[in-house]
């Protein structure tokens, strides 16, 4: 029995949330059960992810290949638990569990009655399942399917709050995201035209052999993929949907959208770029230069836009645009250190941005104030929430002791290794700008006098979620250990594969 479970774990870990998601609507009247079910699924996922990661670490680079339905590779769909898959799976599990915990305490305020809450959880689990699938899949068409599942559940999550602005933001998001999906679909089509394969491994082999026959088509595939996933992951200037969508969504949804959903598309892009096209082809087409360039632009532009926002959640949303820039920049560095740093940065940002959105959401729920200026003195009234916000801000700025620093350090090393002095300057400038837009919030929260109002920390599940996430930020910053090692191995595997 246990052997059967462990052998099928890669698929269980995807199926479990999807399956539970479809059961939830029938249980809408028993919310306590629904919530417990969601938390247990998340806990099981975390357990499974840890198990898979330990196997991958132990096996030293031999991935676990799972063939869906027993069909072997060129015909069937493959799941591949390599270092990258295990890494991202771990990140998903670590982040989504506290968010679910937070949602348990916070959703009544954010979305309302039982029915709506149950629907929220359905979408939440669908998204988590789709993200887990993105982490493991080794098949291009499967990527497309999962991207669609994720996109639609994201749209649902954005509109979970009954509000006209939510409807408008969702509509914009839906249109642009569908455009992105179409482009991704087109890109996959072009690859299929050239290679005749949808399995990433086979497509990559074929592409390496015969790409010279259709150089233009490969070029089209590159650009479709970049723009498609660029829209999805809010790459500047394709980010226009993000600030609205992420700021009107209920806070737990904002957290998972900014923290994980965006990262899922980035991981897909990474897989397509390195596992399908491969880094030599990227160099041939100078894609890596484009990535570094758009990354730098996004860092600066996103940070400056964040500076101009007065609405707390909008400022955080624009900060995501800037941080996505870091990840694009890192994808283009083409060396192990830089790529490992990027992956670690991605993980660290997933945790940090979720914490930021959750604590901002807790503040919003208690005070009803959106504007940063109205939060004066909140540090005294809501010590736990503000402490979590502060820890995550310091992490995002990149102070040592917090996870962001480790990622930035390796990104900087990688930039130096590829002799990219300008990107070094931009990375640091991004940090300073990040301090410029986050530090005032901390200052207002702690050092300005508080109004005489009865604000206090949220209930236990929310506090617990915030504390857990803050601990993760510090632990990753002090002892990044196996997660950094996984990231390093994933980077090495991505660069070796040809």
């Amino acid at each position: 029995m246990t052997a059967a479970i462990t052998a099928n774990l890669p698929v269980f870990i995807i199926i479990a949330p999807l399956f539970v998601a479809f059961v939830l609507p029938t249980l809408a009247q028993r919310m306590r059960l629904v919530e417990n079910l969601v938390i247990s699924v998340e806990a099981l996922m975390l357990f499974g992810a840890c198990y898979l990661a330990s196997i991958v670490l132990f096996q030293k680079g031999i991935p676990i290949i799972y063939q869906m339905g027993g069909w072997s590779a060129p015909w069937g769909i493959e799941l591949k638990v390599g270092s990258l898959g295990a890494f991202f799976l771990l990140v998903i599990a670590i982040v989504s569990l506290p968010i679910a915990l937070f949602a348990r305490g916070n959703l009544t305020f954010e979305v309302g009655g039982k029915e709506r809450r149950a629907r929220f959880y359905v979408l939440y689990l669908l998204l988590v399942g789709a993200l887990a699938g993105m982490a493991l899949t080794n098949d291009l068409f499967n990527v497309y399917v999962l991207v669609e599942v994720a996109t639609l559940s994201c749209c649902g999550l954005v509109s979970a709050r009954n509000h006209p602005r939510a409807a408008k933001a969702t509509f914009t998001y839906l249109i642009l995201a569908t455009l992105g999906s179409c482009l991704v679909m087109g890109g996959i089509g072009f690859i299929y035209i050239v290679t005749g394969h949808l399995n990433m491994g086979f497509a990559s082999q074929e592409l390496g052999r015969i790409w010279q026959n259709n150089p233009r088509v490969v070029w089209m595939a590159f650009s479709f993929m970049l723009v498609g996933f660029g829209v999805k992951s809010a790459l500047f200037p394709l980010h226009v949907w993000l600030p609205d969508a992420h700021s009107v969504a209920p806070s737990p949804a904002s957290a998972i959208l900014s923290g994980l959903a965006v990262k899922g598309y980035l991981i897909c892009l990474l897989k397509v770029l390195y596992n399908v096209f491969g880094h030599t082809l990227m160099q041939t087409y100078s894609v890596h230069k484009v990535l570094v360039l758009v990354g730098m632009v996004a860092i600066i532009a996103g940070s400056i836009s964040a500076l101009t926002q007065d609405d707390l959640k909008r400022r955080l949303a624009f900060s995501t645009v800037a941080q996505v820039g870091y990840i694009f920049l890192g994808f283009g560095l083409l060396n192990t250190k830089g790529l490992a740093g990027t992956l670690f940065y991605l993980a660290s940002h997933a945790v940090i941005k979720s914490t930021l959105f959750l604590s901002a959401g807790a503040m919003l729920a208690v005070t009803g104030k959106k504007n940063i200026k109205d939060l004066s003195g909140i540090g005294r009234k809501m010590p736990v929430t503000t402490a979590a916000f502060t820890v995550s801000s310091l992490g995002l700025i990149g102070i040592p002791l917090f996870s962001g620093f480790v990622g930035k350090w390796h990104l900087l090393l990688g930039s130096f290794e590829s002799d990219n002095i300008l990107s070094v300057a931009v990375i640091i400038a991004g940090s300073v700008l990040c301090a410029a837009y986050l530090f005032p919030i901390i200052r207002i929260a702690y050092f300005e006098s508080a109004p005489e109002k009865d604000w206090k920390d949220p209930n236990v599940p929310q506090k617990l979620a915030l504390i857990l996430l803050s601990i993760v930020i510090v632990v990753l910053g002090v002892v990044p250990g196996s997660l950094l090692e996984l990231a390093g191995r994933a980077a090495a595997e991505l660069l070796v594969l040809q």
Partner: protein
Amino acid sequence: MLSLILALFSGAVGGLIVAMIPETNNRLRNYIVLFFASSSAFFTWRTAMKVFAGESVRIAGELGGLAFSLDPDPLGAVFGLIASTLWLFTAVYSFGYMVGKHKQRTFFTFFLISLTMTLGVAFSGNLVALYLFYELLTFATYPLVIHERSPEAMKAGSKYILYSLSGAGAILIAIVLTYAWSGKLDFSGGPMLVNSLRPGLNWLLGLFIGGFGVKAAIMPLHRWLPTAMVAPTPVSALLHAVAVVYSGVYGILRTVYSVFGHELIGQLGIRNILPWIAAITILAGIATATRQDVLKRRLAYQTISHLSYILLGAFTLKAWGLAGAIFHMISYSTLKITLFFCAGIISEMTGEIKVSKMGGIGWFLPKTMVAFSIATMGMIGMLPLNTFWGKYYLMKGSVESGKWPLALVLVISGIINAICFVPAIVNGFRGERTKTSGEKGGRVSLMLAPTLILVIIALFIGLMPGIVWPGVEAVVNWFY
């Protein structure tokens, strides 16, 4: 090893305890602050004595996958000694100064936490530890800068953070680059970049100095310092004349002697520019000071000038220059704190902050003004004071390095120091001699006692420079 940990964390632990004491319980809080400041000073002395005796007090570990170590060498020990000893004096002064001020709990909490961060900078054994504590020091001292909570203070605080973080960014780039080129981060085991002469080194050194230069207030990176004078006077005295600015100076000394090594810099083109950058700051700083009317701002510009004395000594790349730098670091700190303490007493007792309005103040506050006069003599570099010796060695180092005009710069700076402060003192003793003295009562004595003791210490060192010489010698022997 234990004493290193106790010295380092006394401040932070004390700060957290202070944070839990109610705002109104001043007496208990003061005792606790005194206890933890003394314990930190005591254990720093013990650690430093071990270091000077040649024992290793290394603590090493990992932080975020990077090597991390605390390993004070003589230079770190000297900086730690200066900081922790003066912290004790400033604590006593603050007890008097803060009477009746708002938010004392916050003040003393961060006052103690900053001690830990400063000692962390001093005791750091590699670049990662140095960077960590250097960054944290910025955040720990921010609440002290904005203590008044006035719009002006808030603005000064933001400026301070922005300058410091930008500087830290430059330092981070430089550290990563050092690591990429040499694979080393540790201060022990000789300069990291030795035997790796390559084209980018001038830029790397420039980055380091530009980064640390923000806190060391090298012109034109000094602008945050005069505005930060809105902080309460003990903070200006300790942090903006000694601890924070010294952490920048210390970073530059580390860069020159532990990252590059004086031999390597001796082969770089930038070596001819560096002493002149310091010289320009020395002259421009003190010249600007003469135009300031607010006493604390005048003192701030004088600080800027004198910090570059230390840098000048380091940039001569000669053993005598380094000796002068260390000697000046020790002796200048005692006197500068005295000057700020006096400024604080004057403003608290008379409400006067402008130099031009301080006529006849010497009759009202005689002991304060005597202390102020003696400290000013020290700033000029006159003999019975300890700063004379530092200046003497600095000149010796400058001449030895073949740049005799630098010695002239020091002389001219001494003269401008005199122009800057002597008229103010003379003015202070002008007018009718009054019988009423403002220096009565417990509060003034709390402020006056540390001031006078510091002056006596300065005179004592001036007459017997031999007592600090072993420390200076240990640093010089460590690097040469």
